[in-house]
């Protein structure tokens, strides 16, 4: 489990001086706020029978 909270991670990127909050830092925050998806290689996917019962 991640020890730092999301807010703390964001605040660390924002930094101490609001005047220094430039586009690079803005895109770092945007990147952090992107949900972490595990990407699957679509080419590898084949149809299969569903195994679970519900």
């Amino acid at each position, binding site marked *: *489990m*991640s020890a730092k*909270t999301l807010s703390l991670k964001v*605040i660390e990127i924002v930094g101490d001086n*609001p005047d220094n909050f430039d586009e690079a830092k803005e895109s770092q925050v945007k990147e952090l*706020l992107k949900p972490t998806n595990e990407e699957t290689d679509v080419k590898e996917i084949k149809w299969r029978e569903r195994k679970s019962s519900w």
Partner: protein
Amino acid sequence: MDREVFYKLWESTAEKEIKKPLDIRHSWHRVEPKESNRSFKETVYSRYENERKRYRKCLDIKEDDRLDRHIVAALFYVAFVDNTDGHSFNVFGSFNKKLGDAEASITHETAFNIACGILETFIVYDSKIDESFRKFIDEKGIVEPELISFDKNNRNKTSYKEEILKQFICAQKESRLSVSQVALTFFFLENNTSLRYKITKALT
């Protein structure tokens, strides 16, 4: 949850959680709610009431029918993060648009913590729920599920709570943050907690 219960929960849960982002600041950081505690409480309650009316009307639920605890927590969450007038927190007291994402993350994390507190209170005081589970919730609260990642590069970078918050922030940006979907997340979290409770009980 009527006004009286809302105020009690605000005092017991929200006030403490609202102060947390202020505690994480470093010496030069300034993170503050946009409104004073009293007017903040009034604003959120009024949004909560509007959300509740809209939800009841949408599903044709009578005024005196009580709402499920997950819905109550979700209504609070959606009311708290409403960004009609910008997010609830200012970072550096700035109106810099670029800081909107930083303000969103603090607002959503605070809303999530308070909503979990509301859910816990509703479980702890519900006499229909098994007493030992209520005691478990009283001691441990809603337990955060372990985030299991099969991608080696993603491990330990994030947490279950963080991923929920990111998705909720995205949903709000899409203008599709839905009470029912937030409620479903709280339902899953409670269900996971009860599973953890059962495992703990079986092991002792």
